[in-house]
């Protein structure tokens, strides 16, 4: 236990920042120790797309009807135009509009 009086908070936050920085650096550092072969490449390529989906899953599960409509609108426009910015803008507008009505 560290007291949050005096310099305690600075110490606690500095430790948190260090751990977070190690997480930011760690993936690249660990990969540097592993020889890059086709299996490892396949692994990190598979991981790339599925991390995106994994971030998305709880957002979609948690969302209200407006939020789910937003994801549908973004997905539909993305498949049609293949341009992220208009697709995201439409999704946000749909959520705002649905919730305002």
């Amino acid at each position: 236990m560290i007291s949050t009086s005096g310099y305690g908070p600075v110490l606690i936050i500095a430790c948190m920042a260090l751990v977070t920085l190690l997480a930011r650096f760690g993936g690249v550092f660990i990969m540097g120790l592993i020889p890059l072969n086709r299996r490892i490449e396949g692994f990190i390529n598979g991981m790339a797309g599925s991390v995106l989906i994994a971030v998305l899953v709880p957002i979609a599960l948690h969302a209200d009807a407006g939020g789910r409509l937003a994801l549908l609108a973004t997905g539909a426009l993305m498949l049609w135009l293949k341009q992220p910015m208009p697709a995201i803008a439409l999704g946000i507008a749909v959520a705002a509009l649905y919730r305002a009505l």
Partner: protein
Amino acid sequence: MRPTVAPTLSFAECRRGFWRLLPLSLFVAAFGAAFGLAAVQTGLQPIAIVFMSATVFAGTAQFAALDLWGAQVPLLPLLVTTLAINARMLLMGATLYPWLALVPSGRRYASLVTLSDVNWAMALNDLQSGRNTLGALVGGGIALWLTWLAGTLAGMLFGGLIADPRAFGVDMVLGCFMLSIALAGRRNARSVASWLAGGAAAWAAWMWLPANTHVVAGGLAGGLVGALWLERDQ
């Protein structure tokens, strides 16, 4: 398939990355404001709140720290929680390795200092589609860091006055962004299979495993599909 030319990182590319991600940073500001307000209510000193947002720069971990904050803080549980929540960064960094391995080590690690969900996704999408630059990672990271800090300050100063960001759909920016980047990439049976495995694992982890394990679970499941189902040689 494996990149052979080192990605570039010029000032102009960083500036472009900064402006590309600035509009998306709106949701980061809203999330930062929520953190600033919650931190004030938890009783952190203003200077400590600013110091945390500036140096930790990881929203979910910072909210988790507030849960453990009191007259005494259990340091080890706090650091274990921080590492568990930020373990997703390990996976994100690893996916950038094929490109970052070609960059001198000083620049390699410096460009990871602001690594977070949004600039990682944008940079990886650039690199995979042949735009061989780290501009979105570094410039976009600076945009996210600045808006996170500005949001934190706004929440500390005017917390109660900020309108509900949900009314403007701001809570859906991250979800819509992740979906659009996933759909922007190359798709084949193999990538869709890894998405399905990753999505299913993330869902199961979210339902039954401890909080904040879903990204790592989904990433590892998708990675396993990628390792077992190799692309044919061209």
